[in-house]
């Protein structure tokens, strides 16, 4: 800027010519450092002289504070005490920069008032609940909206290859000064394809590598012939569902001054007319409905997909409600006639997705316990008392929920089937739910039966913790203890293989 620093010029009673945000920012910094109040400043558009003075185009930063290179300022400004440059948070600065693109006549004065108030400690000047803040936010919003609209509603038309670059041209009339940032958006989008966006104030050209400002241009994009556009109109017409006609919403989204840029605008009235006149009962586009149709001659049996996983009977189970909320029923797994059967509570989140028991964190712990107990997991049959995952929503996750007596009873049907086919000698109940299911009663508690072998229906039943309990119990000592109780439980199960359980068919503790 010619004629000294911003503060000097203000004190000399001159208007501050500002054309862009960078200039305003430098001027504002200087004014703030000199404590110049907003009421004292007149912000003006740059005069022709100013432009010719060269400062606007020079790459040198405008002087921020008086220095010895600058002609001696008048006494008043020199005497004004200089404060340290204010520190403005970046997010706030970005907000100001964005608002500066808003075409309101007093934008520089308003922005200066805002930043002044902020440096005076009035930080709620940023908040929409403040009067200036509300306006500032409104300006930012208007600018964002315009950027968005341009991203969305610019329509490129293709020029014939022979015409050379640019291959695509668009014409648009922006409401605010957003062309530079919008051009960058399209530069990122179009790769090495050349294009030009023309507006009444300025134009930009992308040559495939660099953006060039080319000044205002008479608009001519509309006159290009473009076959792509005809296809687009076809698409637009067909994707519209006349049974849902709701033109009001459409107009809410695209205001009429935006519409005029859109090629589809010219067919909209006809589409609305057709849809409402015909009181369409079906969503089909008329031109499609008029064509000859075909049914597909295929017998229903042949249309049945070959499902990779044939749903088992278990998968069709509806003995309780749980099937509705789970992905799949998780059956037991293991050798057909395993001697030891481990019964857990129910599949968890991972098991529900995988379709196999004990594959999640609890499964990994179970592996460790088996190893410590000298039990090869591949020799045991592992199943759950309840075959579907029971859970409740917690935020966006599924939180395990203990099955109720009703579900345990309902699912007992499947447990018995497994029992009848595997015929294990020893059953290990992992946790209270399993115990209830295995004994078919809720009267025996986990605590009472831990580690004590029981005879039940001609089999040995051993009770121990569920691996999840080991994972969950707080404190390292408690974890270790629970872990070793589990190991002992499995060791006991191994030992029991050699003892006939048939001595008594009465259930009871030994």
């Amino acid at each position, binding site marked *: 800027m010619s004629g000294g620093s911003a503060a000097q010029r203000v004190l000399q009673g001159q208007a501050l010519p500002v054309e862009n945000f960078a200039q305003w920012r430098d001027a504002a910094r200087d004014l703030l450092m000199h404590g110049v109040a907003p009421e004292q400043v007149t912000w003006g558009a740059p005069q022709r002289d100013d432009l010719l003075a060269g400062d606007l185009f020079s790459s040198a930063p405008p002087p921020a504070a008086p220095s010895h290179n600058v002609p001696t300022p008048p006494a008043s400004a020199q005497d004004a005490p200089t404060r340290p440059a204010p520190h403005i948070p970046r997010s706030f600065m970005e907000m100001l920069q964005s608002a500066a693109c808003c075409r309101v006549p007093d934008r520089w004065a308003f922005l200066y008032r805002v930043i002044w108030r902020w440096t005076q400690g009035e*930080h*709620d000047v940023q908040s*929409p*609940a*403040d009067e200036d803040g509300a306006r500032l936010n409104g300006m930012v919003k208007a600018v964002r909206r315009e950027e968005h609209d341009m991203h*969305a*509603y610019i*329509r490129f038309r293709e020029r014939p290859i022979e015409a050379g670059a640019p291959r695509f041209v668009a014409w648009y009339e922006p409401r605010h000064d957003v062309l530079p940032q919008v051009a960058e958006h*399209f*530069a*990122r*989008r179009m*790769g*090495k394809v050349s294009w030009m966006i023309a507006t009444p104030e300025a134009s930009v050209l992308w040559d495939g590598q660099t953006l060039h400002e080319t000044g205002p241009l008479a608009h001519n994009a509309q006159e290009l012939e473009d076959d*792509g*556009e005809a*296809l*687009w109109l076809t*698409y637009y017409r*067909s*994707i519209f*569902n*006349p*049974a*849902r*006609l*709701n033109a*009001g*919403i*459409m107009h809410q*989204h*695209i205001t009429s001054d935006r519409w005029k840029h859109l090629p589809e605008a010219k067919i*909209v009235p006809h589409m*609305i007319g057709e849809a409402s006149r015909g*009181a369409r*009962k079906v969503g*089909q*586009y008329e031109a*499609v409905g008029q*064509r000859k*149709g*075909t049914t*597909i001659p295929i017998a229903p049996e042949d*249309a*049945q*997909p*070959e*499902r*990779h996983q044939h*749903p088992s009977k278990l998968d069709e189970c509806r003995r309780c409600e749980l099937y*509705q*909320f789970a*992905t*799949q029923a998780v059956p037991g797994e293991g050798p057909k006639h395993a001697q030891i059967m481990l019964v857990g509570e129910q599949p968890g989140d991972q098991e529900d*997705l*995988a379709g196999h028991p004990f594959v999640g964190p609890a499964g990994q712990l179970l592996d460790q316990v088996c190893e410590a107990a000298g039990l090869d997991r591949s020799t045991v049959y592992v199943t759950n008392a309840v075959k579907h995952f029971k*859970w409740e*929503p917690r935020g*966006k*996750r599924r939180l395990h929920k203990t099955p109720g007596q009703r579900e345990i009873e309902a699912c007992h049907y499947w447990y018995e089937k497994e029992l009848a086919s595997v015929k294990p000698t020893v059953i290990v109940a992992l946790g209270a739910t399993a115990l209830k299911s295995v004994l078919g009663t809720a009267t025996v508690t986990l605590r009472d039966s831990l580690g004590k072998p029981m005879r039940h229906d001609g089999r040995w039943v051993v009770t121990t913790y569920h691996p999840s309990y080991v994972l969950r119990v707080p404190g390292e000592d408690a974890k270790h203890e629970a872990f070793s109780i589990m190991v002992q439980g499995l060791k006991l199960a191994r030992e029991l293989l050699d003892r006939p359980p048939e001595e008594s068919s009465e259930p009871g503790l030994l």
Partner: protein
Amino acid sequence: MELKDKLEILADAAKYDASCASSGAPKRDSVDKDGLGATTGMGICHSYTPDGRCVSLLKILLTNFCVYDCQYCVNRRSSNVPRARFSVDEVVKLTQDFYLRNYIDGLFLSSGIIQSSDYTMEQLVEVARRLREEHQFRGYIHLKTIPDADPRLIELAGKYADRLSVNIELPTQDSVTRLAPEKNVHTIKLAMGSIRTKLDEKDDHPKAPVFAPAGQSTQMIVGADASDDHTILSTSQTLYGSYKLKRVYYSAFSPIPQSPSSVPSAPPPLLREHRLYQADFLMRGYGFTAGEIMPEAGNLALDIDPKLAWALANRAHFPLDLNRADEAMIARVPGIGLRSAKRLIDLRRLRRIRWEDLSRLRCSLKKLAPFVVTADYKPAQGMASSEHLRRNMADAPQQMNLWPELQAA
């Protein structure tokens, strides 16, 4: 058949799928690169059609030939509609051409089931593969997943697509069995589960290959069966919780040409669909559970929005002191949105909230008045009954007439 004719038929056939979003893809650009396309993560609606829905993607079917006979679907094998099939190249070219003209943000490709699930899925994947690998297309791609397809193909689809979706279509197993005999809720859930497993893997191991970075979604048709909103929301909750869905889209059933008698001949009110979206957003954005929104069987109220309905049914929480309540609870006040709740909390750090602040934040004063306390405001003593408030705040009847043409029909 000309390209234009195919486009006419295959866009028409695709319009019943409500998903349209193009958000959530990782940021990409084409600066100094071959090919084209960028994603900002936000998604852009490039136009709106007179049904009020946005156009952000080229939404088409690869083909509307289909061997399935889903009763609610215009493309069912027994339907007498004109059929067409795009070649892979045609879709690839159309996508790029539309993209260059800035009509769209990318492609949403679905298909009727032809030959077999695997064959169909292979074709869908091939379009995406060609766009990505041969043409370096960086725009958005959403592929419909055929639930019965080989998981290997689903994995491949996730490599190329930003989003995958498996449509549940109907909210209950019984309805699927009845109306979509070749489909199977079980395989649908399994497909969703396998997508979630892949998404989890990627979350746990950031170095794992890219897989559907914009996640998965699904669609449920509303009003083709007798399921009520209670059932629908509970199914949505199950799907959100189980499969990390980004969105459940609700699509009010549109009567189709030569409708079979197994589906209704009239559409449900579009307002019902709208209320479901509102309720869905309460679950996704506000942390409501389906049970809170719809404690009992039945449909959402049409005359008031679900948040207001919840507040009226839960008066014990109100009036809420805006200077003390936590953000989540403030957001539950009718007339105060998530953003305003956050702004109130920010403002509260500086000073006490006053009535005027609410009007500056453009909250709906009429709605919130009976539910809040501010530094200078308390609702009148002897508060009005919920019934009375409801009558006062019910949406104006003309708003219920969003679809006069349909009612006339």
